[in-house]
């Protein structure tokens, strides 16, 4: 007597799970890129609205647990039809569990549970608005001027963008422990200072919005500039900064010309990212880039926001940077670029900000308009400003002008000096190539 076959049907029926008994290969539903990261940001914002900003860590933990739960079950049971709603429901249940256990919450139980109960089973448009609202509140809290700036950027990346301390550390070239410490301190400061979880109103809104924009600008630049860190994570920093800025721009409280100017600047610069490196990851100069690889849809979106940024009398650094980026992205090739207009933008930018790096970039535009010799004279005039002499890019630009004038020996010396000043491998490779070109032409 041998009931049942050695392998097969019986065990399958005894374990209820989707698909395992199906004979034909099953289609695996795909998750959209970064779905988890993006949902994490949304859920932390929504839960912070319920727990209170002083319990930010708890909101983050609940969201992490919901994600871990998905990791434990989806690989066996399949991806649910609406993954975002599943995560939201799971986070909600975890939140209710925690609340029932904690004394603090037991005292406020009816109110909090009522709020949580209102979370819909599916994402609905009104709830979407609430999430946007929650995200904006959290953004204002994370970018509060009483928090140190490095804590603001780390906290925004952790809570709003769903980056882990390790990922943040690799973007900022620091250690995971340092980022974790920064985050803990930032959360403590928020609780100690009683930083509110709200969208500021009236006159306060304007200055606080500037703080939020500055953090988004820093995040974008950190991703865009090649000064340090892991290039994959850094590209994502740009995308996240754009994503946050786009969601912010649709909120009435943030719908300001300078908001659109910042977003336009990000979109227009990000459009060039695909063409910025060659296949081996080497840096390509603007004049050597394949312009067909520029992202036309990003350029189009950037130009729309540039148009919107022109409403009103505001003229910010973001406006000028967006204007410069627009000149590049609408030029059919390098020589066809409207350099006089770019130079005019830099002139006005220098009036707003006396930054030596702006002055250096202006000198590049000046050399394009008035010739390499005039460019060198501009560079020499600013050499002593703010340690420019110790900045690799200064010498790289100088070498470029010298090379154009046929001063190959001087150019080689400049590229050598630049090489000594950078530790980034791609920049070193780029400069080595330029140096070799000067030496072989001699």
């Amino acid at each position, binding site marked *: 007597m041998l009931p049942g076959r050695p392998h097969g049907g019986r065990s399958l029926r005894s374990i209820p799970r989707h698909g*395992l008994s199906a004979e034909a290969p099953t289609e695996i539903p795909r998750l959209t890129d970064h779905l988890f990261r993006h949902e994490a940001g949304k859920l932390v914002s929504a839960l912070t609205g319920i727990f209170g900003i002083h319990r930010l860590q708890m909101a983050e933990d609940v969201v992490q647990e919901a994600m871990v739960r998905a990791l434990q079950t989806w690989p066996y049971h399949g991806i649910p039809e609406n993954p975002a709603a599943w995560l939201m429901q799971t986070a909600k249940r975890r939140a209710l569990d925690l609340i029932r256990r904690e004394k603090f919450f037991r005292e406020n139980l009816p109110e909090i549970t009522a709020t949580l109960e209102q979370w819909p089973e599916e994402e609905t448009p009104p709830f979407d608005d609430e999430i946007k609202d929650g995200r904006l509140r959290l953004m204002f809290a994370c970018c509060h001027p009483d928090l140190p700036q490095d804590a603001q950027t780390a906290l925004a990346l952790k809570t709003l963008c769903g980056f882990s301390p390790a990922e943040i550390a690799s973007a900022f070239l620091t250690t995971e422990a340092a980022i974790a410490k920064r985050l803990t301190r930032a959360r403590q400061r928020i609780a100690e200072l009683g930083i509110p979880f709200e969208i500021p109103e009236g006159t306060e809104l304007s200055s606080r919005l500037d703080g939020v924009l500055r953090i988004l600008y820093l995040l974008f630049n950190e991703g865009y500039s090649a000064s340090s860190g892991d290039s994959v994570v850094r590209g994502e920093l740009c995308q996240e900064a754009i994503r946050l800025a786009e969601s912010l721009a649709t909120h009435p409280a943030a719908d300001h010309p300078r908001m659109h100017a910042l977003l336009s600047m990000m979109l227009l610069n990000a459009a060039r990212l695909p063409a910025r490196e060659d296949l081996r990851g080497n840096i390509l100069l603007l004049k050597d880039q394949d312009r067909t690889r520029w992202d036309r849809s990003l350029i189009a979106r950037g130009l729309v926001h540039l148009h919107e940024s022109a409403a009103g009398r505001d003229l910010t650094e973001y406006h000028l940077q967006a204007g410069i980026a627009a000149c590049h992205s609408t030029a059919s090739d390098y020589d066809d670029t409207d350099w006089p207009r770019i130079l005019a933008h830099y002139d006005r930018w220098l009036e707003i900000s006396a930054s030596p790096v702006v002055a250096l970039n202006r000198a590049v535009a000046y050399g394009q308009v008035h010739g390499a010799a005039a460019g060198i004279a501009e560079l020499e005039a600013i050499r002593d400003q703010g340690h420019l002499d110790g900045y690799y890019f200064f010498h790289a630009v100088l070498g470029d002008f010298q090379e154009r004038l046929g001063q190959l020996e001087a150019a080689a010396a400049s590229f050598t000096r630049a090489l000594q000043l950078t530790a980034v491998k791609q920049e070193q490779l780029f400069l080595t190539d330029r140096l070799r070109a000067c030496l072989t032409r001699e």
Partner: protein
Amino acid sequence: MATITPTHTSGHLLLFKSTDWHKDLSPDQIQQIMTRWNDWFEGLKNEGKLIAGSPLENEGRVVSTKTGSVADGPFAESKEAVGGYFLLNVESMDEAVAIAKQCPALGHGIIVEVRPVAPCCPADRMVDEVSAPSHATA
């Protein structure tokens, strides 16, 4: 006499141990591992190598007959706990180990224990019943 018929008389069991290996993963990493695990699972299923598989809840009870006590479990040390299992329809330990090595969470602190399922033909079972009547083995 009631006998227990084993559901499987051959194959290998993969036990995924340690429940807290994923605590420090970022949402992106979680998604990546999950996607790869899904593909792995579906692939094994479609090749006919996977008979069953399921995650286990973190909570449970440990029943100890000696003291008659029932304790919260599964283990005091949560890193020892089994978080899920696969029952594979493969005959050799080598093949089962090769499959275990493909586990997408290996590198993130998970431990996969590979155990052959004991063959249990009627003759063996009679021997078992005679020699160890009170001892039920899996």
